[in-house]
């Protein structure tokens, strides 16, 4: 198994079906304030914009797979939204490798992220990345 602290993740390290890591994300006021600094205020008090779940998904993905080689490309994305989340919730993210394949000379990897709030799934996402090494 790769020692992520010592060596960069490369294409050959990924195994479809294997979990890559878990990460917890708190939908706290600091996170909401950072969101508002970019996208503006939400219409509803206490409402968690669904895009914040997408940002949480990305954080979990990046935390699970590091260090990473430079030059990776986030090429495509699917999202399926589930139960709503609310301010103050603590989400648990599970990251996995779903698939990998060579397309001509490029190394493509599909990563899955599932965000849960207790027993409820709030978001599933599939990140299609062109891995640079």
């Amino acid at each position, binding site marked *: 198994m790769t020692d992520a602290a010592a060596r960069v993740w490369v294409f050959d390290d990924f195994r479809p079906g294997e979990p890559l890591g878990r990460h917890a994300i708190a939908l706290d006021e600091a996170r909401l304030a950072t969101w508002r600094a970019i996208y503006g205020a939400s219409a509803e008090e206490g409402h968690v914009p669904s*895009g914040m779940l997408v*940002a949480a998904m*990305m*954080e979990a993905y990046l935390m699970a797979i590091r260090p990473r080689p430079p030059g990776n490309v986030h090429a*495509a994305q699917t999202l399926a939204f589930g139960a*709503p989340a609310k301010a103050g919730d603590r989400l648990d993210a599970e990251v996995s490798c779903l698939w990998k394949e060579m397309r001509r000379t490029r190394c493509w990897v599909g990563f899955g992220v599932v965000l849960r709030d207790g027993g409820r799934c709030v978001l599933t996402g599939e990140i299609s990345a062109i891995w640079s090494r």
Partner: protein
Amino acid sequence: METPNGAALPRELVAVSLVAGPHEVARYAELTADFNPIHLDPAFAAGTTFGRPIIHGTLGLNLVIEAIERTFGGLPDDVSVEVRFVKPVPVGSAIRAGGYLRSLEAGTYEIYVETASGERAVEGTCTIGRAPEHRNKGANAT
């Protein structure tokens, strides 16, 4: 027009815009813990094929999600999205997100993020009311 679930489906999504300047991109890096210098460091970006910093792809994608929420007053049940990031967007660009109803029967919108010149940076589809099967069920799902 209505979805199979009875929700009204407008022909167009409410368009949402923002200027993705260095401040916004730096905040997005904090939000996602994505401090890749390609987004934040002009000197680093100058040595890449992009030549200058580019925004995070999901910074733009989230603008489409905002457009959906503003259109429906929140996210409807069973929303799924499928997009490609087709063109990098330089930091400092004004971007606009929206969508057009493609199929009432399927509840599908063509969605996009475009720059001020009309170039598409993100494009794909959003389906409302009938979530398609996704292969991602988590590594430990049976």
